[in-house]
């Protein structure tokens, strides 16, 4: 039946949306079950957990389907681009979502706020991330941004009896909404200057000599919007408060997934704008953003006592390292840097999820213990998890043989190739500073006497997340190229292919 109402939906377009659809439909189903269940308490996490798994599989299947395909399949008039790049980011998002779902199971049960709508919101947000990182069209980008952000605002305030939680939600909401307004103004100006909402058309054409100043202003505002989501200095102010106040499982989700989506989208936008689409001013701006982000994040993290807050500042710092990649890419157009950013994203997601998983596991019943000093002696009381946490900290600090190190190596390697040695030196000095506060966790774990008992039972699910993250971090660090040399599925090969696929 060809109805005029549904003119452009065909199987191919739907297939290209597959991971997005899985998330969204999964979220709707969870919501439906929630509505039908009434006041009954169902194992929500196990209802929701298959969704990211299926999305992961879908992304993997599609990754196989699109690899090497030209022209890239696009759906809905180019608003949604399906390529290896987007699917790779989707994989990261799906992994993060899966972990967040599993961790939330432990966390919400302990905090006695185990509800179905929470998981639906998580899945919706993941869907928004898929859209956000796979779109080159202003409206889809904006809607993806909103679909990604609004559930996270809500989830931040999910513990509505807790002052910290609602305060975090309020701060995140205000600044997030402000940033989307800036993003939107940027988009509107770009559209006003060029008459097109397609980033490729608008930005590529818009920076030709003699083009309107509107596009430049708009482009910078768009960039600002992206920088807010990536928590880059000077748009990072919300991060510590929100990370600290939000429920820990949500913080983990934010740190891993939101960051991945934001960097994915920003990287794609920079590619699509093309070397001519990024004016020198913007590239220079990014240079400074990278430097400031690293430095401010690391210096501020030094004094933190609360582990969530410390990880928040650390996430700012890591955004800075990734921004190094983007800044160099913006200045030179070397895609190698983007591959490094993609690699880093996965490693970063794994180590953060793992770290937050341990924090949740040790958080305690009803009341969380989140000071770094609360970890005292855990190394001997709960050695396995402590080793994992230590591994994540070492990885965050960028010490081999971990994914964190190899990611940094790739970034620095790329930047050095392009002659950005001062930038790399600054980054390296920052890494050295960061060792101090990451190792403080090790100090607490192993070198201080225990101060509190651990009477709650460990969780198998959270343990599995921790184990997988730890394994992933090690594999990324030791065998980034796969076990067999030249294996087509090697991660480095994959990210390179993904980056090459962006048009």
């Amino acid at each position, binding site marked *: 039946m060809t109805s005029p109402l549904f003119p452009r939906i065909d199987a191919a377009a739907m297939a290209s949306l597959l991971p997005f659809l899985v998330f969204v439909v999964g979220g709707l189903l969870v919501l439906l079950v929630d509505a039908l269940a009434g006041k009954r308490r169902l194992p929500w996490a196990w209802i929701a957990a298959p969704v990211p798994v299926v999305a992961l599989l879908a992304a993997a299947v599609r990754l196989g389907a699109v690899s090497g395909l030209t022209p890239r399949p696009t759906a809905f008039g180019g608003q949604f681009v399906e390529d290896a790049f987007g699917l790779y980011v989707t994989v990261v998002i799906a992994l993060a979502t899966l972990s967040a779902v599993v961790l939330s199971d432990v966390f919400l049960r302990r905090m006695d706020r185990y509800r179905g709508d929470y998981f639906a919101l998580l899945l919706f947000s993941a869907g928004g991330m898929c859209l956000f990182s796979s779109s080159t069209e202003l409206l889809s980008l904006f809607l993806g941004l909103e679909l990604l952000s609004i559930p996270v605002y809500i989830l931040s305030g999910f513990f509505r009896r807790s002052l910290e939680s609602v305060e975090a939600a309020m701060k995140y909401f205000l600044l997030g909404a402000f940033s989307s307004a800036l993003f939107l103004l940027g988009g509107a100006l770009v559209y006003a200057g060029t008459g097109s909402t397609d980033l490729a058309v608008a930005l590529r054409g818009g920076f030709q000599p003699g083009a309107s100043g509107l596009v430049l202003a708009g482009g910078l505002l768009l960039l600002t919007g992206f920088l807010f989501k990536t928590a880059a200095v000077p748009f990072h102010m919300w991060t510590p408060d929100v990370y600290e106040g939000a429920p820990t499982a949500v913080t983990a989700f934010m740190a891993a997934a939101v960051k991945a989506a934001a960097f994915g989208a920003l990287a794609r936008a920079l590619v699509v704008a093309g070397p001519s689409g990024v004016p020198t001013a913007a590239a220079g701006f990014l240079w400074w953003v990278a430097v400031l982000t690293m430095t401010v994040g690391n210096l501020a993290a030094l004094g933190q006592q609360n582990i969530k807050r410390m990880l928040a500042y650390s996430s700012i710092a890591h955004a800075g390292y990734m921004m190094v990649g983007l800044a160099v890419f913006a200045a030179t157009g070397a895609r*190698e840097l983007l591959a490094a950013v993609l690699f880093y994203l996965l490693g970063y997601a794994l180590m953060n999820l793992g770290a937050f998983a341990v924090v949740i596991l040790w958080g305690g019943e009803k009341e969380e213990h989140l000071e770094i000093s609360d970890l005292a002696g855990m190394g*001997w009381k709960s*050695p396995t998890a402590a080793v994992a946490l230590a591994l994540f900290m*070492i990885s965050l600090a*960028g*010490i*081999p*043989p971990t994914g964190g*190190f190899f990611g940094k*190596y790739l970034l*620095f*390697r790329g930047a*050095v*190739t392009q002659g950005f*040695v001062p930038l*790399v*030196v600054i980054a*390296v*000095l920052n*890494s*050295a500073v960061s*060792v*101090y506060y990451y*190792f*403080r966790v*090790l*100090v607490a774990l*192993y*070198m201080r006497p225990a101060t509190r008992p651990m009477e709650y039972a460990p969780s198998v699910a959270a343990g599995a997340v921790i184990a997988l993250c730890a394994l992933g971090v090690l594999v990324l660090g030791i*065998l*980034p*190229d796969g076990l067999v*040399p*030249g294996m087509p599925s*090697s991660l*480095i*090969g994959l990210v*390179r292919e993904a980056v090459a696929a962006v048009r």
Partner: protein
Amino acid sequence: MTQSTILSLVVFLPLLAGLALLLVPRQRVVFCRWWTLAAMTAGLVASGAALSMMQKGAAGMQLVHRVPWIPSMGIDYFLGVDGISIYLVLLTSLLGPIVVLSAWRSIGEKVREFHFLLLLLQAGILGAFLSLDLFLFYMFWELMLIPMYLLIGVWGGPRRVYAAIKFVLYTIVGSLLMLVAILYLYFAHHAQTGMYTFDLLRLYGTELTGPQQVWLFAAFALAFAIKAPVFPLHTWLPDAHVEAPTAGSVVLAGVLLKLGTYGFLRFALPLFPSAAHAAQPLFLVLAVIGIVYGALVAMVQTDIKKLVAYSSVSHLGYCVLGLFAFNISGFSGSLFQMISHGLSTGALFLLVGMIYDRRHTREIADFGGLAQAVPWFAATFVFVTLSSIGLPGLNGFVGEFLVLVGAFGANRIAAAAATTGVVLGAVYMLWLVKRFLFGPLVHEENRMMSDLNGREVLLLLPILLFIVYLGVHPGPFLRRMEPSLHATLTLSTPGPGRVETLRMLQLSTGSLRGSGTGWKAGAEGATAPRGASVPLLPATAPEFTAVVPAPGVMDQVLTVTASAFAVSASAVGNGVAR
């Protein structure tokens, strides 16, 4: 190419043993100790085997094990050994079981973890000594950091956390900058040859402009100078030594510091010869300051361990001095000094640890007259002290003397200034002996102390034997290291000789074929056939075979000429002490 897996065995034996240890229930304390001792001993045997498998008189890399690891980046798993590294490997392996034995009683809690970390540390150190791929080297270099950090931080003294963090921060600042430099070198090499590789032997051939060399050398030198430690960067060392448990101190002083000087010898000097030569005056001055300053500060210490730690600063100064003499005497003296310092200072720390286990204090003022209570201990202590001072006939003398000879060849003033360090060394050590062992037995509790037991004798004995053996008969050692040192010296000297030497070295490992390719052509790199002949010293290069004329004669000359000097120095020291 015939690959040899013996080096991988040397490196991974401790690592695998350590991982296996984690599966043991933590209550099985005794088993952990025996297991570790067995693993360390096996490692020592493996190192010995490696030594025996080596071709004598060859300058190039031997027993190469090379497997592509991250081919898309041109990174190989690439181990090899030559006359330089084999002794450091042997030293490390020798100290392994000794360290385990030393911790037999003193480590009572978290035993399994302690031994796991020891094994991990061992693997890291050995790997760093044996890596010929810069990336792999960096991995092992950093891998040592964590176990050492935890050894100090968990089992250390009262200020252990401070000391541990200080140690890590110092090291990491240097090593991260080195990473940048490695990357830069990697790309400079790529720019010249179109090939991405971390193969050290290929990177030796990279031609760099003056400023490039200076910057890269600075980055490498910073990392190694911190580790060594060279004078203004040494401040982490006393803290780390004092707070570390005995086993940690022994490893730290015995082996870890040598990584710094080894790094200079293997990487910083041959990679950037012009810059290294330009920096020669600076490093000579720093080395001399380190020698004198270390000695002077050691003199005023009240804590025995701290005193020994500062003496390390002084002794490592000789190593650096020898390296920057840029002649074969300096180089071989430096390497010899590394080994002998590892033995004698290791032994000193062991002895201090033993006394600490008994009395739980290290203040010199708490002792005195120990010779009456524990005569065997006292005798051993005096013996080791003499070795450390550089008494002719013992190991310390050979290294110091060769270094000074080399330094005279390079810069007379520096050499003369460094000589005062010898005197000062005698002064503080002998003064220590006097206050520590002799005089009236003031503190009654010292009278009740037990003397060395069987285990302690067992662990000290090999060191003492080597102290004597190296001192009396250094020839074979020197002969073995000579060719490699000479090759390194040629590489470290800007000039036409480099190319030929380099070619020889590259031939020895098959590096000429290349392994990594990198970004654009990962696939070809991965499938490229690799292999080369067994590394042999080409017969056409006789200049690498025998450099030291008639080693036996040399020994005697040295012994005789220096004896008088040393005895007088000891006399002066005793006079000061009184």
